[in-house]
């Protein structure tokens, strides 16, 4: 088991003929992911590393099962690509593209909710269930990915793509390994937050603990703390909080109306305090995460 993506998951890349996407396709195939094709309007009939290119998402969904799509489309066309995938019935959409205007993100997130589809990102590196499959550029080449991500028992969620890999590497070094690691994206509005992915990890027998990476800004940590208190997760959670220096810098807070919406749990100090009350351990350094998890995983 694992969450979201498994060895049998089939998926496509939207924007597959772009330079970054071509490299990603190679890496995914090398890693053993079931990449079945890609979409670039007007490029039907081509192949990228042996997988077919179509003009539309429907061209694939009408003839075979498509579990997911990775959107690697320039910002101006990314929202359209996500809506297309949702309409075509794709249920897992990983949006790699960054700098998509917030209104467009909110629109496709609401659309996905209505259709029962899940969005990961935008502005993320993707997700990986080590040894099984990978969606997105997370980990880089297949060899580099294997070095940083060994299969194991810890679920990882991170607002930073790069730090997803760093934390996974620490867990791999420590011999704990990873069930599924998910780069959830760093934007103000994202498809899936920590609290929204927790129930999936809770239901996954392979996952025995959770490591998260968080930053100043937003209410995602408060929402996670509320989930832990209300739902009472079976999983111990260890967080690493970066950007502590930003508390000392002015101009990092939201404006008035924003503060009312976001509440006060916005600085790293407030977030650490809030997570602590919900029983989430906060590591001062990345390398402390495995030991903190081991103590708690042993006790559960």
């Amino acid at each position: 088991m694992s969450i979201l993506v498994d060895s049998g998951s089939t998926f496509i890349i939207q924007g597959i003929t772009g330079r970054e996407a071509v490299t990603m396709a190679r890496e995914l195939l090398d890693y053993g992911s079931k990449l079945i094709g890609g979409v670039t309007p007007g490029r039907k009939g081509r192949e990228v590393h042996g997988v077919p290119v179509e003009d539309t998402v429907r061209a694939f969904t009408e003839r075979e099962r498509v579990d997911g799509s990775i959107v690697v489309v320039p910002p101006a066309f990314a929202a359209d690509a996500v809506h297309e995938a949702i309409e075509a019935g794709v249920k897992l959409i990983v949006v790699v593209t960054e700098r998509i205007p917030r209104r467009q993100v909110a629109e496709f997130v609401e659309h996905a909710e209505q259709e029962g589809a899940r969005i990961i990102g935008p502005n993320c590196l993707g997700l990986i269930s080590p040894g099984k499959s990978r969606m997105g550029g997370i980990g880089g080449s297949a060899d580099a990915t294997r070095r940083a991500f060994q299969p194991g028992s810890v679920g990882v969620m991170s607002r930073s793509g790069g730090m997803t890999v760093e934390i996974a590497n620490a867990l791999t070094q420590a011999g704990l390994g990873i069930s599924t690691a998910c780069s959830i994206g760093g934007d103000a509005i994202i498809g899936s937050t920590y609290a929204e992915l927790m129930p999936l990890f809770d239901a996954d027998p392979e996952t025995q603990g959770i490591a998260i990476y968080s930053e100043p800004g937003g209410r995602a940590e408060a929402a996670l703390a509320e989930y832990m208190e209300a739902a009472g997760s079976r999983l111990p959670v260890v967080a690493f909080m970066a950007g502590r220096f930003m508390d000392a810098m002015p101009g990092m807070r939201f404006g008035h109306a924003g503060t009312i919406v976001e509440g006060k749990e916005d600085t790293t100090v407030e977030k650490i305090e809030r997570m602590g009350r919900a029983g989430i351990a906060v590591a001062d350094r990345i390398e402390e995460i495995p030991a903190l998890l081991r103590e708690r995983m042993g006790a559960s």
Partner: protein
Amino acid sequence: MRFYEFEAKELLKRRGVPLPESRLARTPEEAAEAQRALDVPVVLKSQVLSGGRMKAGGVRFADTAEEARDAAETILAIEINGQQPMGVLVEQKGDIAQEYFAAVTWDGRAKRPVIIFSDMGGIDIEEVAETHPDHVSRTHLSTLRPLSDYQAKLAVARTGVTGGDLNRLSRIVLQLARVFREYDLTLAEINPIGKLADGRILALDSHMDMEAEARGTHRALLAELGIPDEDTRQARPPTPFEIAGAQVDAQDTRGVAGNVTEFSGDLGLVIGAGGGSLTLFDAVRAAGGNPADYCEVGGNPSVRKTAALTQLIVSKPGVEKIAVMMNVVSNTRVDIMARGVIKGVIDAGFDPADKIAIFRIPGSWEEEGFAILRRYGVEYVDRTVSMHEAAGRAVAKLAAAGGS
């Protein structure tokens, strides 16, 4: 991107929101003329991209043209939170009976826009939310369904407002929500909405922010408002150091690099972008180090670009050593980074073995990268050494050499 008050009011005016009569004045003489044209007692407000105008003395009153000239002269000389006013808005002064607050912004947790409305406007809305929560309503909006009158009415009615005021206020709130949606704003606020003694309800002050990513889609609007592309509305103008960083970045398109920042310490940082840089900055500070400047590098910049940025970082006066550190990277090639930083240090006239305190970038092509670093005698560590440990070694090395 923040709008000036007079620009925000122009957006409201286009939607038919009732406003007091006003004129923008760029000089004291224009302010006097404006008062003469309006021919009523006026309020003069600093047009500045900052809050706290009243407290700073950026809002003054005048009954005559002479008073208006003097008030404008005073206001134009007052810098507010480091911001120079670009003019004064000379506006008809009303006899205010009651003030309301209305804003539309994003609720990141609900992933929806939200209308915030209060019948206790004019004062600090955060305080009202704490002391009088029943006087602040929050009404979420769909991004897909059409904006409709009832949503604005709901927002206003939830604070207990009824009668003719409910209808007049909700018309304003609905238009505010339309402006928010139409122009990709992240905040559209009217505070206060004033109910005058004669019963009229007007938008007295407004604050709007447009999402930077959406500027491209609203070129026509920005042109109509007279806001050129190069007007970034940043809190402060870029420093020569930052301009130099942007110039290096513009040389070629590969890699996300060139975002440089200056501090007052002695350790230069060439570090990964995003979460990695936040973590490393904390790590350097936790080890007792003082960053002098830093440059974020992401993606796959060329050797030339990396070298030019490194040269910029290492050449800043006061920089004793630099640390080159990233989280375990997915796409950045370690050998190219190694080549780039070594070239940059040599181009600046220094010895890489002495200037580079530590190199910690684990990832693809690291063996090739480490071979290059060995050849130049640069200390490097692999993925078995954590980011915090690497930062600690760099700071210790600097201290041993007589730095901070």
